[in-house]
């Protein structure tokens, strides 16, 4: 049963540490507690999105560099 993980804070969501770098997680990847799944940029400062639960990353709800609001669905964990 998939679970939807929400954005912990508002900002711009990034899937990689820098442009041109590989994404932190691909769809289908295993996610362990403490893994970085993405970054959220809030007012020019970057906060990692860290997994609080383990599982398999089924799908992202947002694209790289999309604007997100706190509580918005970020990714599905199965």
């Amino acid at each position, binding site marked *: 049963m998939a679970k939807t993980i929400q954005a912990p804070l508002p900002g711009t969501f990034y899937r990689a540490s820098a442009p041109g770098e590989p994404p932190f997680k691909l769809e289908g990847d295993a996610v362990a507690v403490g893994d970085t799944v993405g970054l959220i940029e809030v007012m*020019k400062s970057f906060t990692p999105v860290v997994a609080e639960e383990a599982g398999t990353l089924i799908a992202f709800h947002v694209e790289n560099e999309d*604007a997100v609001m706190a509580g918005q669905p970020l990714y599905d964990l199965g």
Partner: protein
Amino acid sequence: MAVSTIFIANRGEIAVRVIRAARELGLHTVQAVSAADGDMLAARLADAVAPVGPAHATKSYLNKEAVVRAALESGCDAVHPGYGFLSENADFAQMVEEAGLVFIGPRPETIRQMGDKARARQEAQAAGVPTVPGTEGVVADLDTAKAEAARIGYPVMIKAAAGGGGRGIRVARHEAELATLFPQASGEARAAFGDGGLYLERFIGRARHIEVQVLGDGKRAVHLFERECSLQRRRQKVWEEAPAACLTSEQRVALCDSAVRLAERVGYRGAGTLEYLFDDETGEFFFIEMNTRIQVEHPVTEMVTGIDLVRTMISIAMGEPLPLAQGDIALKGHAIEARICAEDPAADFRPAPGTVTGLALPGGFGVRFDTLLYAGYTVPPFYDSLLGKLIAHDESRAAAITRLDRALGELVVEGLPTTAPLHRALAADPAVRAGRVHTRWLEEWLAAAPLAVPLAAPASPAPTPA
């Protein structure tokens, strides 16, 4: 060229500032808005708004093609770039001009010339403006480095030619230290950057940041005295003053005259700022770079000279000659600007966007607040954290600090934390009151005693308007 409508290619408080100046000149405004900014104050104040793209700035306010297209489609004939974003982008200025619009700023070639630090340094030297003493390129070997360091004067910074962003820097206080550090630095530079080339520059440990405001019409230039912006955190200015109280009147004349020489040499058009380091132990000043735009801290200069910088830069862009001679510009009193940001100073300045649930703005004699805030506004997370700039002007520096503190005491922003408590602590600090600061002072002060202020905004209710 006749201008009737200005496109505001920026957001926040500077967009509000430009709209006000344009309206006083009888001009219309069209405000650029990203998808996240439809309800910002500038969008409410402008005559019209024009979408420029999604929330993320690289896709909207930094998208040159989208901005120029929006300006043309909305029937504007001039573009004001504000500060940040595309304001110092020579290609953008060129695209604006090639589209047949007036760029409210310097010529694209001037932006390009002064944006290149090496070329700006050469122009400064040609204009007789002192630059930080250093070698004119890579130093071949240790013997040459010793000879050059003796000429430059210790302490010297050893910098990797291929480095950047502060990486690969060593400081040698005397020749023996240079002999140890030079080969080490070269080896590290080779390992880190694939190039062991080093150059030397004078190290100024206790520098103050002082900058001179200029206005030019492409032929003639004047200065509007200087500002001191030494209180910085992470290279971001926090508190700015005009004039710089640490200068003698002779030093002030030499500094400001040097800025006019450089501005006239490059045929500067519009409002610009020349940044210097000032060593108050030796009384020397050194040009470091030029900002070819209006700056965040321009209001302190407006308060002490009585000259509207934004209005003047618009009229210059419309082809009018500089309306001022140097003799018309006098310094009156002292002004201080405190940048109020949506950050929590008690939580390592964590950025804190959110909704403003209550607001009371300071006022009274000698107080100005340039802001993007209104009650009910939701500060978006996508941009800079600057909420507004509180400026206090009074007859003396001591009186201006007192007035700033009084005004800070009236400011109420409910719903999100702000950096106002930092400014109250600075206003109360004996070193700040005595003016004994330098560019690293604020970070050392914060490291020594982190601010213990409430996480949330002040709990006291906003005073009821009479």
